[in-house]
């Protein structure tokens, strides 16, 4: 149907924002296409938000629904906080990709389909009823359908290369990328740079990819069927320098920044697990920042090695996801008893047990706050977006080091893999971090005779914040023994004394409670200081809640939004804030864990909006939830 002809004049329409979803086989290079187009738009100045959605299998069988990989991108000339509830454009490389994602396309939306991916085999694998081809039957009449034989066109564009058929077909995604860049009036410069750099060492592939990219672009220019291009103007973002960042990158960079600011080596002990592994990968590429990465034999060894490193005077960090964090409970109790700095990151995924490894969820909050034996309160933080992952990771390091305590940081698969533009700070503007090191001392006189009046070093003697001194092996005159058995106040010697146990239990708890004194006063994200509904969010629900609240406010409703970043101890202003609204709504990707905590703490009859589907909230789900409350 499409044949190449001489260019014809085309019109360009302006769009405020666009949601586009690329979908195909895990082998089709969808993630690359998506992330590259994201970069182009970001660099152009759009605000962007993305949602990569992988299959659980490494490479599920080609053409099957299980094998579909997707990458959703929302870019706009206005603020963008989510990857978008529904798509304007759906690009599908085969039948399964269409079947799996059509429900995400808005009515009247555009479909760009690779017709070659709709042969009888693909249709059967995708499970289309008696193999009716949706591209040819009338089933897609409510959409704007462009059926393009991307495979053939790509091969054509590579005719004069010596590549085999297989390699040629691998460039399909470049053709798509070229075409989409044309469709949204983007130049190919950045993408070309990326390709050149990626295939530096493989001139043949470099050449092929550039050709396919250009072919796709030209195809848009020349093809009959595409008469209009679209343009999304830059977003009015605050002045500054920007880059794109995913949540896992944010955490890795935040940890390094924290360690650097504290002047500490960063020791990262961890065991691979989806979706936390990328933090390990990122850190292992940055050893020149005095980063030491240790792939331990299991999660217990991972956290224990980190505790050992902190004992040795470095910043010990470990990360995992739900099942791995469950294994760290006992050692976390030790770190709490030792009162050593430690950062524990949980990139949450669908649970319980192995659950849904590649999907997102927020159901590990209780585990973070209560998942240990004995009275062991530990500060718990939650990041609300990819960029916030950087902020919170840095905050976690600061609290852990300055208060000599393990700190848990919660992220989740959604923000861990999702990307957004980040107005990155300058190193000099980051807050300082001061380790409470003890001061080494002489124990003998010049002749080496023990000093008479030397009083014994007290490793558990606390400062005004209840923080003990950090005496590191190698420091002269500060030898001491620590362990997991209850300690005598100040000396740290083993003590079974009942009163001492009560005292130490209190002192450890108070130290952690005092951390709330360091928080900034609580701040609404948007909305009135008092009113009908306060939506209390935490973690990755931020974007959806923020978008929904803005809509609700535009609709004239009295709705405010606060996003909690400190899950324990809570911000002191929170109790007062909750009381200033008729209703409190708590959207969570779990069955109501924060809700339980707030009810217990403030006796507030908060309402829950709970989604446990391994998928993030859409902003409309939140909006509807709030409306139901308003109409109560």
């Amino acid at each position, binding site marked *: 149907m499409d044949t190449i002809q001489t260019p014809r004049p085309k019109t360009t329409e302006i769009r405020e924002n666009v949601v586009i979803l690329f979908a195909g086989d895990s082998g089709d290079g969808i993630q690359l296409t998506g992330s590259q187009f994201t970069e182009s738009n*970001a*660099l*152009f*100045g759009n605000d962007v938000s993305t949602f990569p959605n992988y299959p659980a299998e490494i490479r599920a069988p080609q053409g099957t629904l299980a094998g579909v990989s997707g990458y959703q991108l929302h870019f706009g000339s206005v603020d963008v906080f989510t990857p978008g509830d529904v798509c304007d454009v759906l690009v599908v490389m085969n039948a399964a990709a269409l079947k799996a994602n059509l429900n995400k396309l808005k009515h009247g939306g555009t479909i760009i389909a690779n017709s070659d991916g709709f042969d009888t085999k693909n249709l059967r694998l995708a499970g289309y009823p008696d193999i009716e081809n949706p591209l040819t039957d009338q089933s897609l009449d409510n959409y704007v359908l462009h059926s393009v034989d991307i495979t053939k066109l790509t091969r054509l564009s590579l005719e004069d290369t010596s590549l085999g058929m297989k390699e040629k077909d691998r460039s399909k995604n470049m053709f798509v990328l070229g075409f989409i860049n044309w469709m949204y009036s983007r130049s190919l410069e*950045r993408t070309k740079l990326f390709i050149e750099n990626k295939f530096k060492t493989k001139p043949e592939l470099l050449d092929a990819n550039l050709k396919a990219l250009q072919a796709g672009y030209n195809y848009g220019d020349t093809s009959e069927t595409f008469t209009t291009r679209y343009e999304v103007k830059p977003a009015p*973002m605050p*002045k*500054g*320098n*920007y*880059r*794109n960042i995913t949540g896992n990158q944010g955490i890795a*960079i935040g940890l*390094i*920044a924290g360690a*650097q600011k504290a002047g500490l080596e960063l*020791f990262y*002990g961890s065991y691979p697990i989806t979706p936390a592994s990328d933090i390990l990968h990122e850190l292992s590429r*940055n*050893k*020149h*920042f*005095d*980063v*030491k990465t*240790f792939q*331990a*034999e*299991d999660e*217990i*060894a*991972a956290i*224990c*090695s*980190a*505790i*050992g*490193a902190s*004992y*040795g*005077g470095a910043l010990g960090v470990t990360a995992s996801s739900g099942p791995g964090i469950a294994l760290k409970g*006992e*050692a976390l109790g*030790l770190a709490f008893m030792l009162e050593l700095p430690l950062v524990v990151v949980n990139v949450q995924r669908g649970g319980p047990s192995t659950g849904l490894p590649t999907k997102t969820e927020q159901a590990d909050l209780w585990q973070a706050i209560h998942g240990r034996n004995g009275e062991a309160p530990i500060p718990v933080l939650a990041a609300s977006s990819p960029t916030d992952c950087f902020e919170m990771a840095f905050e976690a390091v600061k609290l852990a080091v300055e208060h000599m305590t393990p700190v848990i940081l919660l992220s989740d698969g959604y923000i861990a893999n999702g990307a957004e533009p980040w107005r*990155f700070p*300058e*190193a000099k503007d980051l807050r300082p971090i001061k380790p409470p090191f003890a001061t*080494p001392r002489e124990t003998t006189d010049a002749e*080496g005779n023990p000093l008479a009046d030397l009083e014994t070093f007290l490793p558990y003697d606390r400062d005004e914040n209840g923080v003990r001194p950090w005496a590191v*092996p*190698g420091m002269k005159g*500060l*030898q*001491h*023994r620590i*362990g*997991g*058995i209850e300690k005598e106040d100040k000396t740290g*010697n*083993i003590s079974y004394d009942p009163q001492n146990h009560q005292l130490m239990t209190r002192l450890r708890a108070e130290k952690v409670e005092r951390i709330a004194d360091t928080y900034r006063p609580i701040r609404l994200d948007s909305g009135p200081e008092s009113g009908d509904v306060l939506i209390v969010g935490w973690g990755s629900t931020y974007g959806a809640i923020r978008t929904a609240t803005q809509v609700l406010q535009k609709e004239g409703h009295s709705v405010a939004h606060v996003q909690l970043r400190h899950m324990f101890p809570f911000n002191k202003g929170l109790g007062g804030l909750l009381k200033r609204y008729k209703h409190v709504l708590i959207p969570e990707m779990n069955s109501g864990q924060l809700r339980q905590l707030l009810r217990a703490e403030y006796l507030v009859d908060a309402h829950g909006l709970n989604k446990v589907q391994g998928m993030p909230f859409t902003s409309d789900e939140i909006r509807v939830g709030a409306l139901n409350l308003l109409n109560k």
Partner: protein
Amino acid sequence: MSTLQPAAPAPKKIDYSSDQQVRWCPGCGDYSILKQVESVLAVHGRPKEEIVFISGIGCSSRFPYYLDTYGMHSIHGRAPAIASGMRSVQPNLSVWMITGDGDSLSIGGNHLIHLLRRNVDLNVLLFNNEIYGLTKGQYSPTSPEGAVTRSTPMGSTDHPFNPLALCKGADATFIARSMDRDPKHLREMLLRADAHRGTSMLEIYQNCNVFNDGAFEVFTEKASKAEHTVFVENGKPLLFANGTKGIKLDGMTPVAVDIAAGEASVEDLWVHDERDSFKASILVRLFDDPRQKGALPRPFGVFYVNDRHTHETKMNAQVALAKQKKGPGDLDALLRGENVWTIG
């Protein structure tokens, strides 16, 4: 490693003991091990603050409290992981790990074998009393089959580990055995362990006189010791029974021969070579039940030594190399990343 330190004016041995009262049962084998360790520390006279003892949980693991060095009494079985992290960031201290047969071979087994393959530079003292002492007498992974304990009233049905065979299987670079009742030999083994760069695995037979008294009697008591033990020394033939008997290799099978009775001459005997991995894997398997007649004697001494690189040297080398290649980390560069755009 301590051996590499300039020996400062040696402090008196007493210096190394802490102000904490030792709380093992009267008569416990742990006392003599503590004594020898203190004396070995005194040999190098390494400043106290440069020494770290890390233990798990168990009677034996109380050890660190009794020395005025740095010390951590951690959690059950995890000392190897904690020590690995600590060593990774402290390449210059003298690090000792104290553990029991339950602590390191039951709950801590995985950490131990990974410690050994990584060859983290520290000295492991495995107090093997073939019982769980602190929890009052359940059988351990080294208790013999049939052992009647509080958890096995009808006798244990588990085949026990041969601890050093397991360590050899995990590619340990230093493997040795000694006993609480032979201070001189124990001291020597401690010095050898301390001198080795890498994970030094020293198994120490230790008598738990409350829950497993006499477990090693045949090896430790005058009457039976000579017949039932062979003390190996590098380059020397395997002689025992005060030199009247020896061990010879018949093909690949070790057999005891009576030299005195002229069954063989000293020249025929197996000559110990610490560096021979194949021989070592057989030596650690000389583990017959001494109650069986014709059982081979139990070997003591240093069985195997290998100079494989240590974990922390390579780890530090990579950090150095990374700095050399990329220059010391520039935080602003990291924050900027590859693709920056500017607004306004």
